[in-house]
């Protein structure tokens, strides 16, 4: 599973795309957030951190599959 990164999450991780290893067994939004928070503790200090699946905001309980386009969405500040 691949996760796209933007803005401060790209800076925190030093990557614009993270590969989540299959053996990590991540299959929900909540599990993904937990795993990323362990790998990159600085992510936990953000005001908020959402996950998008195929360009839509996802909920913690939503399931994730490798075919989806998954992205981390730190607090937005456009406009």
């Amino acid at each position, binding site marked *: 599973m691949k996760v*796209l990164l*933007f*803005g*401060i999450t790209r*800076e925190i991780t030093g990557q614009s795309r993270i590969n989540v290893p299959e053996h990590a067994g991540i299959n929900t939004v909540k599990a993904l957030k937990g795993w990323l928070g362990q790998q990159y503790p600085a992510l936990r*200090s*953000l*005001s908020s951190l959402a996950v*998008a699946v195929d*360009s*839509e*905001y996802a909920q913690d309980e939503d399931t994730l599959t490798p075919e989806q*386009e998954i*992205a981390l*969405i*730190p*607090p*937005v*500040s*456009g*406009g």
Partner: protein
Amino acid sequence: MLIKIVEHIDLNEAYAYLQSPEAGAVNLFVGTVRNHSKGKDVVRLDFEAYDAMAIRQMEHIANEAFDKWPLVKLAIVHAVGAKDPGTPVVVIGVSSAHRDASFEACRFLIDELKKTVPIWKKEFYEDNSVWVNAHP
């Protein structure tokens, strides 16, 4: 609707799109780079977008606006990249038969854009820089 992410904002393009003989009112909001923020001098801003999702989320709020108000046309254009103070970074425009709808829809769209559209702004001051809203 005219929805896109660009390098440079073109106000005329947005206005030309919105103009219509059926519309009596056009409201345009232009967000620009301020030279100060929270007491500090801003020397530059950098905007980054998750393009595909940003377009999708702009379409959602545009559809909501069309559902709520009797609109003729609607434009949402956001710029990305490095921007100097004074530069326009977003233009939102709405045309409608009467002015109530254009004012209200335009205000709704900029408020919603700031809440949900995945675009990020990094402010550069003389001595450091921050991603706006990132931390509590």
